[in-house]
């Protein structure tokens, strides 16, 4: 396995120009979409099958009751423990040698289980092809040694592309810098490989709580409780089965109900 690649999105540098969204659409040949009124300058509510980078414009009031913007270019997190990948029954979703998560279009059969299993609502069903799409981490660029299109385009270096370990070190340094400058609310999201989902390979520096950005504070792998859920189902099967055995049993069945 090659060294893990990552993207670090530092929202404190984002100016909301949406160049990343456009670059993504150009490189991946994704159609433009009709803008939606979201109550803000944000032009669409969420990712779609055609929007893989998505710039959020969050309006807030600061301490002096002045309006302020929180901007964030969101993307698939390429989770180290990825709900979509675990869910996929066909093996269409796979981990690349760079540690990122990709979907093989030939193999996807359109069951949409991955859509339901992403804690961030990233994967989206394409009604045209009957298959699902999401950010590929520009696998066709990165495998040729190029940066992702969004990182290449970003004019403020809010999006950085590189090796995960190097970027994580950089993120920590930037966080310390901001804290020293008094930006106490700055946090890193997904940088910690011991944290939720084993760390995200697209991680972020945020200027408020994750929930404010529409991100779960503690994302968990949806498949974690499977053994428990299966066990409880087996328990119910045994109970209902025993009840039926008592009911149908020839001798001693009597009329004593089925409670076992």
């Amino acid at each position: 396995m090659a060294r893990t690649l990552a993207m670090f999105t530092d929202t404190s540098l984002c100016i909301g120009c949406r160049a990343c969204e456009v670059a993504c659409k150009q490189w991946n040949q994704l159609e433009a979409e009709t803008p939606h009124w979201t109550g803000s300058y944000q032009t669409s509510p969420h990712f779609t099958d055609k929007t893989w980078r998505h710039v959020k414009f969050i309006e807030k009031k600061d301490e002096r009751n002045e309006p302020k913007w929180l901007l964030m270019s969101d993307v698939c997190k390429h989770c180290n423990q990825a709900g979509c990948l675990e869910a996929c029954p066909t093996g269409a979703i796979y981990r690349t040698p760079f540690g990122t998560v990709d979907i093989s279009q030939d193999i996807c059969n359109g069951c949409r289980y991955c859509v339901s299993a992403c804690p961030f609502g990233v994967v989206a069903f394409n009604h045209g092809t009957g298959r699902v799409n999401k950010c590929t981490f520009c696998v066709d660029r990165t495998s040729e040694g190029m940066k992702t299109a969004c990182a290449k385009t970003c004019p403020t270096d809010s999006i950085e592309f590189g090796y995960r370990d190097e970027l994580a070190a950089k993120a920590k340094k930037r966080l310390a810098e901001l804290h020293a400058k008094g930006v106490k609310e700055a946090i890193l999201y997904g940088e910690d490989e011991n944290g939720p989902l084993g760390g995200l390979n697209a991680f972020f520096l945020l200027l408020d709580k994750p929930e404010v950005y529409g991100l779960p504070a503690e994302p968990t792998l949806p498949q974690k409780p499977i053994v428990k859920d299966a066990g409880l189902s087996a328990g119910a099967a045994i109970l209902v089965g025993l009840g039926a055995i008592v009911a149908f049993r020839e001798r001693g069945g009597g009329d004593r109900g089925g409670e076992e």
Partner: protein
Amino acid sequence: MVRAPEWGMYIIWYFFLGGIAGGAYFMAAIADNFGGRRDREVAKVGYFIAFPLVMICGVLLILDLGMSSRFLNMVKILKFWNPMSLGAWAVGVFGAFSFACALLSLGVSEERLALRRNVAKVGSWFGFFLAAYTGVLLSNTAQPIWRDARLMGALFLASGASTGLASIALISYFKGANLGESWSKLKKADTFAMVVELALLVALVLMLGPSANPIIKGSFALPFWGGLVVLGLVVPLGLSFVKPGDGKERTAGGTMAIASVLILIGGFLLRYVVIMAGQL
């Protein structure tokens, strides 16, 4: 912010019919193996229900994908601990078992019946699986409601058992089958399954706490409370306490047929409400 998988009527019908197929089959297997001579009639009806329903299930799954050849991608690999993958395989394997049992029900020779009982002993495990796994499939997603519903698989299993028995009772009634004391056995097993189902439903809603709101309040409150809880569970449970007079098997069957229709409506509404409210 999570995204709903846009599962609609195909999946709702699949979950519902899969539950019946699994439930009817394993109840048939129990009647076949633990019951008496008369109960073989019950078993036969159960196998005859399971086989066509599981065929329809396969068709529904393929229709949901939109292209039949794509279903093959589902069964080209098997991912263990993956409900979607195991489920696709289970439909196939269970289909084979229910076909075998339906076929063996056509004859009357003792050897055939003995073989049928043995086949059913193995096949019933897949029946249990088919009835329950759809709940586990939902509870292992990131969707609100579903993700916290630890008892969804158990609840679907109990519902599969009661709807399976209800469809056996209903078909037997319309066939005019002479089930004799098997009626009361069917009723007893179904009553017990419904008690378990109701208990699990209460536990599930309590465990969900406020995240159950989209189900128990708002536009799904009527199908949930009125349809599933009252019509689908409480009324049939009440009917099961109606004591028929001696020798009134036919009336007993009639009461049970009415209860069965209600149970089936409840079983459908359970899947409908859970799938629709979970994707709001």
